[in-house]
């Protein structure tokens, strides 16, 4: 009974730490995005709150918290309140299976404990796909419940877009799964140990370069970010599915969008760029004679890779104009889907001809 208690206590601590880090990252990202895009457009970005504008996220958060919460007349009140929660929860729940660092097992008070992954389930990647697909409900229902034409159009666009590009995300991942022979994110990361030439983006027998490109583009589309942000295209739909939202409910949608960005960045880093593995065999800290602290290097590499993807999101936003809706659909179904399917075919043949260490 005591053991169960310790186990639950450890898990809750772990969940709290991960949620805290994710939400802090979101806070940081809201500032980083404005700063990075500002610099790319030869501006300063926010400068007023705090030294060099670094307290801007706190000001934004307070403003959203104290804003009046408006429910439009004729809106479906129950679904209007439910939608932001349905958008946020699936975005946060996916972090449960992401390995943030080396697969250590520590014993605390006689209980086996993995400090760097909340739950190593053997269908990890399917679990994430399942819950990201639930995120679409928040957007659709939010759009419908607002009782506004702009919101409804935004919600319907989002539904079509998320379903189309989710398919490409799933198919792009299959190549990696074929090479790794596992659905567990921990095992997939471990299979990529020993230098960057073992990462699945470069790995023998068939580098997953095409799958990687398809995955990144589809992930940007799935998170509704520019250049694929048609569900909230401000030049046509005011703000799309969250036109009628304000205050904390708006903040939930906002958090969900950024949490989703972090989640897809984590998945991309784990599946294609070796997760917490350094780009060289072993770790520097271990060679210096501190093998007990080698995990630190793994966590740092994971963070670097995730932030690379997050920067890519900002970079794309500052560079590319928005697609038209028919262009978006044609691109998804007629360009990305055949590439992803072809990649699966060739990877399957390659994995059959050159089976790697099973």
């Amino acid at each position, binding site marked *: 009974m005591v053991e169960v208690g310790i186990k639950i206590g450890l898990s809750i601590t772990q969940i709290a730490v991960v949620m805290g880090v994710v939400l802090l990252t979101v806070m940081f990202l809201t500032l980083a995005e404005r700063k990075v895009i500002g610099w790319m457009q030869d501006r300063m970005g926010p400068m007023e709150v705090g030294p060099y504008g670094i307290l801007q996220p706190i000001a934004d958060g307070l403003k959203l918290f104290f804003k009046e919460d408006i429910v439009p007349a004729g809106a479906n009140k129950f*679904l209007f309140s439910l939608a932001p929660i349905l958008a946020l929860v699936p975005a946060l729940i996916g972090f449960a299976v992401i390995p943030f660092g080396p697969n250590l097992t520590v014993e605390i008070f006689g209980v086996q404990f993995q400090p760097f992954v909340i739950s190593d389930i053997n*269908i990890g990647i399917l679990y994430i796909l*399942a819950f990201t697909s*639930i995120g679409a409900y928040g957007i659709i*229902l939010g759009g419908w419940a607002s009782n506004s034409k702009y919101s409804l159009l935004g919600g319907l666009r989002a539904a*079509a877009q998320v379903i189309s590009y989710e398919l490409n995300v799933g198919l792009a991942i299959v190549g990696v799964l074929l090479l790794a022979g*596992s659905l567990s994110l921990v095992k997939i990361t471990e299979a990529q140990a020993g230098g960057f030439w073992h990462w699945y983006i470069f790995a023998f027998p068939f580098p997953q370069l095409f799958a990687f490109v398809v995955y990144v583009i589809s992930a940007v589309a799935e998170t509704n970010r520019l250049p694929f942000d048609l569900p909230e295209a401000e030049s046509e739909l005011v703000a799309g599915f969250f036109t009628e939202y304000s205050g904390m409910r708006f903040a939930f949608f906002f958090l969900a969008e950024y949490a989703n960005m972090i989640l897809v960045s984590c998945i991309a880093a784990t599946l294609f760029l070796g997760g917490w593995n350094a780009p060289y065999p072993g770790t520097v800290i271990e060679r210096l004679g501190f093998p007990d602290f080698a995990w630190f290097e793994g966590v740092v590499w994971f963070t670097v890779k995730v932030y690379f993807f997050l920067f890519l999101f900002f970079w794309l936003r500052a560079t590319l104009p928005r697609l038209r809706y028919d262009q978006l659909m044609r691109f998804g179904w007629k360009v990305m889907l055949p590439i992803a399917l072809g990649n699966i075919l060739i990877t399957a043949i390659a994995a059959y001809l050159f089976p790697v260490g099973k």
Partner: protein
Amino acid sequence: MATLVFFYFAGVIVLTSLLVVVLRNPIYSALSLLIMFFHVAGLYVTLRAEFLAAVQIIVYAGAILVLYLFVVMLLNIKREERYHPQFPFGAFLGLTILTEVLLLAYHRRVVNEPASPLSHTARTLPNGQAVATDVAPAAGNTEMIGEVLYSTYLFPFEVASLILLVAMIGAIILAKRDLFEQREG
């Protein structure tokens, strides 16, 4: 404990399935269907079939039901007009199935007399679990499903995929009928 979990899932499944039919607002029907899909996935997890549970949510909740919602919102169905013309047919069908269920239940009770229906369900659940753990070793049941699908059940699997292909081509031809007629004319 396992029985308790089973009855929770089963109860919610029955309740939400009823709500799907009874509720007048099609959006609420779709939402209770969503809750039902999750609880069916939960049942799969208690049977150690995690792969099926994940696929259940990805395919049914993540794709098919979203499309349902999409259609319901586009058509903007009026609340009342759905039921009345179907009522006699529905009542006939319901009565037939109810009779069938009652006959089956009666027959089963005659076959194994001492077992009451309640203890019977309680007994099959641990059985089912034992079978599931035998089939799925520690390696995970995803590999097992793949192997069984491509060896023992290869023929039904291929037939099912062919049927899906036919349905897909059929849908394209129905939707793009004007395209083909133009080419002929």
